[in-house]
């Protein structure tokens, strides 16, 4: 399956991936109008240190601990391999946050948990990849 990979040597730490992720979640085209003045909760997060920075989002693991540990059965690995959350079923127990080795699940703005689902229902592929100015996030087989 196609997954997101990060190339930390190219990451500028500009956080645009986080903003485009949040915009993809909210819908609309005008980032300034949609996101100005709010604290965004993106599904991809930049980690920054003194000398290095990179983006982290769901790895869509072959053996996903979040799927195996989900108390409700809300987290599933679908046919194509995308790990998704059924937010109707999720009760926000945070067991997935407890088990994900990448820190890739987080509480969502509107309750429940959220994670990268590869912009599965959006044309043009993952928004973070398309808008990374330096090719530090790629979407490949």
């Amino acid at each position: 399956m196609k997954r997101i990979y990060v190339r930390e040597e190219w990451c500028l730490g500009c956080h645009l991936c986080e903003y485009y992720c949040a915009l993809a979640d909210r819908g609309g085209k005008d980032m300034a109008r949609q996101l100005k003045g709010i604290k965004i909760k993106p599904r991809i997060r930049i980690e920054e240190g003194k000398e290095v920075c990179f983006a982290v989002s769901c790895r869509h693991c072959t053996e996903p601990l979040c799927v195996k540990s989900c108390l409700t059965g809300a987290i599933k690995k679908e046919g194509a391999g995308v790990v998704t959350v059924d937010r109707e079923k999720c009760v926000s127990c945070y067991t997935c946050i407890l088990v994900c080795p990448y820190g890739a699940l987080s509480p969502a703005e509107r309750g429940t948990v959220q994670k990268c689902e590869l912009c599965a229902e959006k044309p043009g592929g993952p928004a973070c990849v398309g808008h990374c100015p330096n090719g530090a996030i790629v979407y490949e087989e």
Partner: protein
Amino acid sequence: MEYLIIGNSVAAAGCIEGIRRRDKTGAITVLSKENYEMYARPLISYLLAGKTTEDKMRYRPIGFYEDNNVSLLYDPAAAIDVRARTVETVGGRRLSYDALLLATGARPIVPPIEGLDKVKHRYTFLTLDDARALGASLRPDSRVLIVGAGLIGLKCAEAVRHTCAAVTVIDAADRVLSSILTREAAASVEAHLAHNGIGLRLNDRAARFEGNTAYLASGETVGFDILVMAVGVAPETALAGLAGIEIGRGIRIDARGETSAKNVYAAGDCAETLDVSSGTVKNMALLPNAYMQGECAGLNMAGGRAVFDRAIPMNAIGFFGLHILSAGSYIGSTYTETADGAYKCLFYDENALKGFILVGDVEKAGIYTALIRERTPLCEIDFELVKQKPSLIAFDRAARREKLGRAV
């Protein structure tokens, strides 16, 4: 191949999915004691609180049994003959198997307390039937007494509080959630529970019941209309024991999930498990553990060579919006942080993270859990950084490339 599974909860789901990864055609039969398709058992408190529905509690989608070619029988097992490889059911069936999974779960412990059997409105809280019965009995003016301030007792208390004003929880321990919280960590949780209207009586126990009054060891009395016994659970091992299968702190299994009887496997709350954070064998009645043990057993029942050797105690639980995440063993040195109502305590020895407790701020907790589960040598990471914040930046470049630069 004929596969037989005794039990119809999460370990059974793992087993079915494990078998079907290797064997698409072998016959799978599930014997269920409860008259329901499998449901997410920990959600019974959410159901009681009105935060989910029985439909959303389905652990697997409608059609799960048909899609996996499983025959589900609402007919509990009565006896196992490991020599003849047969199981007799309460309903009089005699079923043969090539591989058997015991996923019999746990039963509530009900201690012998004087007068307990004469309490009219008395419940335990482990099954959907328990939740339905308790829910039907609650009135807004009911006084509810819950014996046991563990995970089950407190989730029950939180749910009951949605309906009832008077909820009291009693426990012999000096703190709530004594299996997962230290005294220090419990303090803020107790304050939060009290703030949300849960009456706590710790360091005390019910010595006897008389009508609707509990007489406590301290000499005090508590009046109640409804009593919930939630002192803990014990592995359901009776069938296995009668069949001559070895029992330890649960049905004894090896890392492949096999019991002392050949081709008989066990998984979930009925089985014992090696806790790799402490090196001790325990009964760990935890849902993720049940699924992964069941899956491992299923893979092996279908001829695979899987092992499940990464079990650690871990819990994610929340009350009235306050989340508590914990994992591992509380041994070694500690690192503690308290800030903005959040509490963090890490436990570590000379070269490994052994355990943690997080209250309030749970962000990226799984990075800590992975360090414990994988026994990552602390000399390989920037532990000072990780102490403050769980992050992948604490790993070296090569390790990060493994994690983020390729398929995992």
